[in-house]
């Protein structure tokens, strides 16, 4: 893109050079706060439009060039790209950019292209973009909708931190160890014969470690083979009723303690998609029946269930059966940029209680995921996934072209154009972290018909996270659904589950208690949906309850 349009607001407020020390104090954490900007409780676009994340680049040539949030001083321009799937015609979109709290750009444009459209805002002061910490604020019909930051650093300086939402004043970050469940409250079940066969000499060490986590019981201690879900569930019910347990820990993968095969309420909608992968559509893997002691119609677990889903990786098992302490660092989020609107309530829930380092992909690539992500206390990921190739999750690419090449301030045509890897096993893992993954099959660890048939930490992100010492890992075992809901909206589908989970986490609940609270909470939403005649929400809620799993020690 050539610099055709130089906005008056920009030229009138050309910045002088900013000292690097000032940039370091403002870049990332505190930048938005320094600019005195606050988001509304709910984005103005929610339920009205599908907007992408604000994206920064130095040029556009079909795709954004030099996408990122850190640029070297001396560049002629920084473009802010705002794309959308849909925005009603006539909507007013206003972008303001502040440099170290001073307004340096202000432009309002009415939407004329409702679908697959976008605007490119051009910050291009004469003499180039000076160093500084910049905050971009998007208003949707006058209501603050998104805040994003970028930094322009002096030539040769090292990049600073990513886009971080500061902890709101008056709230403290969640810090310190996250206590594990009292061993007296935990029933640990496995089939020891399977672990002895698959772990060999290391089985004794694993079983000894498991015995310290809770009351360890071999489901075949009486000599009866229990390799089927029904047989294993019946025995677990017997053991639970004989004690006073609050948590169940299943030790081993599907070969050791089989997942229940629960009917998929939306199987007919998914069969075509899954056929080519040879993945099941009629049933979904679930552990819920193991603790559904009252036999309610939705099979809601009455006791929280955790699983360490490996039968052959002794190091993973011992790591998870040990003590994994989270850092006091804040949160890290990696979001498919096309899902910004859907993720917003979850992100805002997290950001209300912690420093949250948000990354959207694109522009973030596997190579540009910051090393700090491996030390985050909390992680939230929203990407695409599938149960066969579980070694990466992907995001959507978009292509940009102007409607009128002579009017670059006018509407742009923005179209999705394939997918790109967003994170793989080489970048994943966070010791001590509490991780919530919103990717289809994010928690799938079962063998598959198609290669790679057997899942290990080398080809399965869930197992990779667990092997790295992740404190708790929450994800789904099948196709899951993102639903647009507000911060105070009725929870629906996986997005609703995530909202309930993070609300409980930031309120101080342990990960396993937050997980159980989310299951029970979504069960209530399911009841309400049925009562209201909303059968679609009911079906999605039911499937979500079935497929959400907690991996790790409770």
């Amino acid at each position, binding site marked *: 893109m050539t610099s055709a349009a130089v906005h008056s607001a920009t030229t009138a407020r050309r910045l002088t050079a900013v000292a690097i020390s000032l940039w370091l104090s403002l870049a990332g954490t505190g930048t938005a706060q320094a600019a005195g900007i606050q988001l509304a409780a709910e984005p103005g676009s929610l339920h009205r439009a599908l907007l992408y994340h604000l994206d920064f680049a130095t040029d556009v040539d079909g795709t954004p060039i030099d996408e990122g949030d850190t640029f070297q001083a001396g560049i002629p321009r920084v473009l802010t790209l705002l794309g959308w*799937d849909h925005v*009603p*015609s006539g909507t007013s979109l206003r972008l303001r950019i502040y440099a170290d709290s001073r307004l340096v750009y202000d432009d309002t444009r009415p939407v004329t292209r409702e679908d697959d459209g976008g605007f490119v805002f051009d910050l291009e002061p004469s003499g180039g973009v000076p160093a500084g910490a910049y905050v971009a604020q998007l208003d949707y019909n006058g209501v603050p909708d998104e805040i994003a930051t970028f930094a322009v650093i002096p030539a040769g300086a090292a990049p600073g931190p990513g886009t971080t939402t500061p902890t709101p004043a008056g709230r403290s970050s969640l810090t310190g160890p996250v206590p594990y469940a009292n061993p007296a409250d935990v029933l640990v079940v496995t089939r020891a014969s399977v672990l002895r066969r698959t772990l060999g000499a290391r089985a004794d060490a694993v079983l000894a470690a498991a015995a310290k986590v809770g009351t360890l019981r071999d489901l075949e201690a009486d000599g009866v083979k229990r390799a089927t879900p029904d047989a294993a569930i019946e025995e677990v019910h017997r053991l639970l009723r004989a004690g006073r347990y609050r948590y169940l820990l299943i030790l081993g993968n599907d070969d050791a303690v089989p997942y229940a095969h629960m009917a998929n309420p939306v199987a007919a909608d998914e069969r*075509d998609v*899954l056929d*080519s992968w040879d993945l099941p559509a009629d049933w979904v893997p679930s552990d819920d029946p193991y603790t559904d002691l009252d036999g309610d119609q939705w099979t809601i677990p009455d006791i929280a269930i955790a699983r360490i889903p490996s039968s052959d990786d002794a190091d993973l098992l011992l790591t998870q059966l040990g003590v994994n302490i989270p850092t006091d660092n804040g949160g890290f989020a990696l979001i498919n940029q096309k899902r910004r609107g859907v993720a917003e309530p979850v992100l805002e829930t997290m950001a209300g209680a912690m420093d949250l380092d948000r990354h959207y992909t694109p522009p973030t690539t596997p190579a540009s995921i910051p090393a700090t992500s491996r030390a985050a206390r909390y992680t939230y990921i929203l990407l*695409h996934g599938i149960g066969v190739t579980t070694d990466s999750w992907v995001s959507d690419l978009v292509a940009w072209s102007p409607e009128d090449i002579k009017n670059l301030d006018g509407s742009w045509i923005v179209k999705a154009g394939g997918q790109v890897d967003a994170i793989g096993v080489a970048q994943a893992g966070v010791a001590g972290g509490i991780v919530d993954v919103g990717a289809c099959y994010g928690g799938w660890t079962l063998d598959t018909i198609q290669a790679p048939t057997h899942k290990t930490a080398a080809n399965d992100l869930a197992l990779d996270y667990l092997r790295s010492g992740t404190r708790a890992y929450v994800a789904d075992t099948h196709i899951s659904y993102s639903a647009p809901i507000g911060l105070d909206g009725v929870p629906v589908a996986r997005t609703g589950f995530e909202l309930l989970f993070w609300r409980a986490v930031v309120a101080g609940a342990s990960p396993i208690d937050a997980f159980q609270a989310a299951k029970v909470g979504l069960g209530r939403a399911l009841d309400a949906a*049925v009562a209201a005649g909303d*059968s679609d929400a009911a079906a999605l809620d039911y499937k979500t309850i079935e497929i959400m799993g907690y991996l790790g020690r409770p």
Partner: protein
Amino acid sequence: MTAHGRLIGAWTTALVAGWLAVALLGGPVATAADDLGAALHPATPVTEAIARTSAATIIRLQYQELTALEPTVTHATDFGGDRWVLVYARSNPVSGVRVSIDTVRGVVRLTNFP
């Protein structure tokens, strides 16, 4: 007839023709917003044909990258309700849009993979 009279006659004919055209062709041409609004609020009871039309309009206007896909169409009668579900999805990787339309209330819900 004088030239003046012929001019008035032609003008009157054109005026009447114009009014007839407006009366026969109906109101102003619908905008995309009108189309989307109608697709999101289909007439009830929602038949399969209505559901297909609504979903196709929504996909055409909101998810153009999926317009080439043939949707999977199912009629579900569980959880105390009755609905059409149309899924426009790719399998590698799994991504797409699910359009659910309540047959009785006409309520449309859009959800994504994932």
